[in-house]
């Protein structure tokens, strides 16, 4: 066991998967000698060489498009896009190609790639470095979408993602890259994709979140003094409806927290599923505490945008008062 940050846990997972399986290769911008702009791939170039840790030209569509080819040929590419704001140029290759290859060839070709992308706000970065686009990719059939909220989960989920035979987007909440450490086993282990984690058990409200917001939720829960069941989604798609529904059946109230804009965010899908599965259990309308329907402001105001413990606390008050 080592006490690791999220960055270190990911680094360790990459090393171990690369040691075990030479089909695993990394490609992206500045991931080589520089070790990535967040140092997630630190030391890997030195350890595995330029054939397996490849600095590419500055072209996101190129990174994903060639990764698709690599994966179709049976490799397990792990591309990195430097920030979620630069997923845009790769959108087409991800959604029109990676996501569709298996079904459109009825399995003759598959695309076992794992795309790593830092995401989310709160690090005082320039524009397009603080977005949360997970709902976009959750709406694209054929992809899986993962977002860990802790070092332990990061390692186990990333290993699962790399081993998964289908394309996975692995979002890394950059705000908590180094925010805290956690015991992480040295050995390889997997956390199944599609299974949520109950962070704290509770009776009054079910709170559902993922990524860095999970930490805000924990703070808000603590401040509220209430018995709240916190569900960390872990996997954004497929959504673990069962865990959520079981919890809401118990609590009768649900609050969903995410950084992305509220309209069309994943909160809407989760709220709708809850309603579809346990409408008569609901004691109050489901609350979505989310980013506003605006562009994430430049960093002078980003704290105004991000749903924080205060706003979550308001939701707790509002929903219990209902």
């Amino acid at each position, binding site marked *: 066991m080592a006490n690791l940050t999220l960055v270190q846990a990911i680094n360790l997972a990459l090393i171990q998967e690369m040691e075990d399986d030479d089909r695993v290769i990394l490609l992206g911008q500045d991931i080589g000698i520089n070790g990535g702009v967040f140092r997630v791939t630190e030391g890997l170039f030195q350890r595995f060489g330029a054939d397996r840790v490849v600095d590419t030209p500055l072209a996101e569509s190129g990174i994903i*498009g060639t990764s698709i080819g690599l994966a179709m040929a049976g490799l397990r*590419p792990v591309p990195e896009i430097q920030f979620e704001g630069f997923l845009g140029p790769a959108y087409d290759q991800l959604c029109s190609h990676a996501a569709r290859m*298996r079904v459109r060839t009825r399995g003759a070709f598959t695309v076992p790639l794992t795309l790593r992308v830092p995401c989310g706000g709160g690090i005082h970065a320039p524009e397009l470095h603080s977005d949360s686009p997970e709902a976009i990719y959750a709406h694209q059939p054929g992809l899986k979408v993962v977002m860990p909220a802790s070092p332990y989960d990061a390692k186990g989920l990333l290993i699962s993602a790399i081993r998964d035979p289908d394309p996975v987007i692995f979002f890394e909440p950059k705000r908590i890259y180094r925010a805290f450490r956690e015991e992480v086993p040295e050995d390889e282990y997997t956390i199944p994709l599609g299974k949520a984690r109950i962070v704290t058990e509770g009776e009054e409200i079910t709170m559902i979140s993922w990524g860095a917001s999970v930490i805000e939720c924990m703070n808000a829960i603590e401040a509220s003094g209430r018995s709240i069941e916190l569900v960390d989604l872990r996997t954004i798609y497929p959504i673990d409806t069962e865990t959520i529904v079981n919890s809401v059946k118990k609590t009768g109230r649900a609050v969903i927290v995410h950084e992305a804009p509220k309209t069309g965010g994943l909160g809407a899908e989760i709220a709708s599923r809850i309603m579809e*599965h346990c409408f*008569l259990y609901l004691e109050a309308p489901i609350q979505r505490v989310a980013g506003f329907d605006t562009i994430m402001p430049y960093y002078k105001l980003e704290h105004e945008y991000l749903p924080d413990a205060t706003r979550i606390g308001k939701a707790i008050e509002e929903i219990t008062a209902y």
Partner: protein
Amino acid sequence: MPVKTVFKTSIEHISILDENGKFDEKLGKGLIPDKDLVKLYEHMVTCRHFDEVAFKLQRSGRMGTYPENRGQEATSLGAAYALRKTDWLVPCYRENAGLYWHGLPMEFVLLHWMGDERGNQIPDDVKMTPLAIPIGTQMLHATGLAWAAKYRGEDTIACTFFGDGASSEGDFHEAANFAANLDIPVIFFCQNNGWAISVPTKTQCSAPTLAQRGIAFGMDCIQIDGNDIFAVVKVVREAAERARKHKRPTFIEALTYRLGDHTTADDSRRYRDEAEVEVWIQRDPMIRLRKYMTDRKLWDDQKQKVAEENAKREVSATVKRAEEIADPEIKGFFDAMYAELPEELKRQRDTMRTSSIGQDPNQIESPLHAH
């Protein structure tokens, strides 16, 4: 030095068997053994017939939109002939002749245009990717496939086909740039057929040649007469050698022409002159090849007749296979979504005929048990 030349280059155009059937012995000798030449021509006869039949299938409502290949047979066929069975062909949608040569069962293409994904379920031993509908996107996959081969130390290469229009897409630029800078063994084979639907090549590239696109990446570039199968074979062989030995990509611009409409949904009389088409009919790759073979006594009318009869037989058997295939599994588009289907998808699949999917069926059945 205040002004110095730091780079110099030129683009050559190669033609061996010209549109009048004139053959350049120096370049062409020994390029394609006579026996193979006859086979290639016979293959073209079959493909041309296939194309006509496919067109009719669409017109009679037995198939969806179809892009005629007519007039462009020499490009992909010459390339496939020059490559190995283990090399990847990464096509667009006008390369039937090359794909069949490479081993794709003909009915796959029909199935594809009949709106059936099984037409893309490429057999394991046929090294090609499915037809690419979104323009200009497949070249990146070719680069990735070739990269994987290089990574594994194999001498497999990839050859990707695309049109003049496709060369305007950013993805083309990125694919070529990756290949050139990371030393990836891929051939970029651009079939400049003069048009991207109604848009002429000069709107895609106002430069004197499309071949010079490759100069941007420091790639070897060449322009050829794409209706001359000898020129195709020659430059693809050279490019393949360069790729296999030196892991260097090549950009080939093949000048050709689509004699038909863009697809069966198009009416090319709206935007191009009949006179232009007339000129290109004379440049048909099959006319000159037949003339050449006839001159060399490799071919005669009797052989032509036999070839056409064989083509008919083969194509009608192909149509039969495509049309007689059992209806696709209705749930097929669920089951192939993921290696393992998520719960929600299973539920949607299993209730697709019985419920609206608007709701959890359990909740519908027993809402009142709930509270």
